[in-house]
């Protein structure tokens, strides 16, 4: 056996290594945010939110004179909001219903199978879900569309919402449900008027996290929504989204300056949704 002194020193060294490596791990987040702010803040102005993406030629001329690139990402912002909204309309009711069923019947074979399938869908890569939405919506309807993008995002959101709904409902005390039933209200009323409102904080957190998760998705949208240079309100037409625009700017040397502002915007949107969700989760935590 080694001496006590030796072991204490070894313990100290290990402790400092753990602390050091842990703090190193924090660096990438700040490095990424710093890089985006440093390179992107110049581009963010009023027209960034109100105009569509500039053509390559305009961007080249602006670059030639040393100006910032004119135009903005209004088409992408609108597309992202549109597609996420439609996806939420599809995914939230289905996800919450499945979550209710799983928490009401936790141990039946049917529930286990559903839980297993939800996990399977949650684990499948986003690009594969893009292929699915392509096969289900783009091919039969004969063209890329915002709706196809929404379907792919909805498939990704459902398992996340199912999970958070089930977890939240499981934490509610059983007496809550029993009290409602004892007062003579129907099963439906107890769930819709008692359980769901009490679980609202948890459900809302889950929904926000799911939204923030799919908002930054690029891969499935490449196969479904394709992208468009104009502002588009028609859900059956190809539509752009902020991540899709970043991908386009990345592939066009003249527009390369736009990627930083667009990424900064996307990152702020996603991270603030994330932080709001976690804040609500902390506030509504059931004791």
């Amino acid at each position: 056996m080694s001496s006590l002194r030796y072991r204490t020193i070894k313990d100290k060294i290990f402790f400092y290594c753990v602390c050091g490596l842990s703090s190193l791990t924090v660096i990438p987040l700040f490095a990424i945010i710093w890089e985006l702010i440093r390179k992107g803040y110049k581009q963010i102005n009023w027209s960034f939110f109100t105009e569509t993406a500039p053509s390559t030629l305009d961007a080249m001329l602006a670059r030639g004179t040393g100006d910032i690139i004119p135009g903005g990402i209004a088409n992408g912002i609108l597309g992202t909001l549109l597609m996420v909204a439609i996806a939420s309309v599809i995914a939230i009711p289905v996800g919450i219903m499945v979550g209710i069923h799983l928490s009401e019947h936790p141990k039946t074979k049917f529930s286990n199978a559903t839980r297993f399938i939800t996990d399977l869908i949650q684990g499948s890569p986003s690009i594969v879900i893009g292929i699915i939405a392509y096969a289900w919506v783009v091919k039969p309807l004969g063209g890329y569309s915002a709706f196809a993008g929404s379907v792919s995002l909805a498939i990704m959101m459902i398992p996340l919402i199912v999970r958070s709904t089930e977890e939240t409902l499981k934490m509610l005390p059983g007496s809550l449900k029993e009290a409602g039933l004892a007062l003579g209200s129907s099963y439906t009323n107890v769930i819709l008027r008692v359980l769901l409102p009490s679980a609202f904080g948890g459900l809302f957190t889950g929904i926000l996290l799911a939204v923030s998760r799919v908002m930054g998705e690029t891969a499935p949208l490449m196969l479904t929504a394709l992208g468009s240079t104009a502002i588009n309100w028609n859900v059956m037409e190809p539509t752009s989204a902020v991540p899709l625009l970043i991908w386009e700017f990345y592939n066009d040397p003249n527009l390369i300056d736009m990627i930083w502002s667009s990424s900064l915007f996307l990152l702020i949107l996603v991270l603030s949704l994330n932080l709001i969700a976690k804040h609500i989760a902390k506030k509504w935590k059931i004791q």
Partner: protein
Amino acid sequence: MRDKIFKKLLVGCCILVLLVCAGMIYSLVSGSLSAFNQYGFFHFIGSSEWDPHPDRETYGALSFIVGTLLTSFLALIFCIPFSLPVALFTGSYFRGKKIATFISSIIDLLAGIPSIVYGLWGFYTFRPIIIDLGLNSQGFGILTSSIILAIMIIPYASSLSGEFISMVPNELKEAAYSLGGTRLDVIRTVTLPNAGSGIFASYILALGRALGETMAVTMLIGNTNNLPRSLVDTGNTMASIIANQFGEADGLKLSSLIAIGLLLFGITAVINLIAKFIMKKFN
């Protein structure tokens, strides 16, 4: 009456989810049939030839399977020296303290960053470092993408394994302390062996994440269709070849890409199932 309809509705939604999954598998299989019929299943996954030339079209998935496995496993190895300390930091050394919550919420935010932003950061900040080090003249390749992938999966590996580490019963640890163990001794002989299978499972889940990552890898791996010969070589993963070529594909090529999607779906499903199985068995 209303209750009956409501209950039917709940079951109906569950059935809908089951149907979605069945439909996913059906669409992938039916879409890839023509590629498998043309080349044969085993030849398709065993051949590294990817030649879209119209006269002599041949497609094989081997280079992409190798690319995917290589980048993901490398990412897993690179992420261990960082995610394990974080897990120990939040789950053992500073369990329940403010600093642990702070660190773990920051690491959780890493999981929220969109894949494409990681790709950009890797391309403009990280790739020049690889070039400066002289590892690769272009800076693209397996190594570059697996390092970025490693950063992306750290939150998945560390948050779950931190939870498993914090669940190790206090009595066991106290018993070891009372025998005169230092904190390192306790971690080595009590905490890690006890939480071991859970930690293992969380790393497998993180591996599942890495396998399906698309955008960051597409931007960093170099997109060449040959079998990677070394760690600094360029290549393509299953996800990145789909992202790159799906748009202009039709006929046999489209079918081959869908077949690669089916394989990717299968691999990630198996990996996730293994992780779930381990967690269930040892919990």
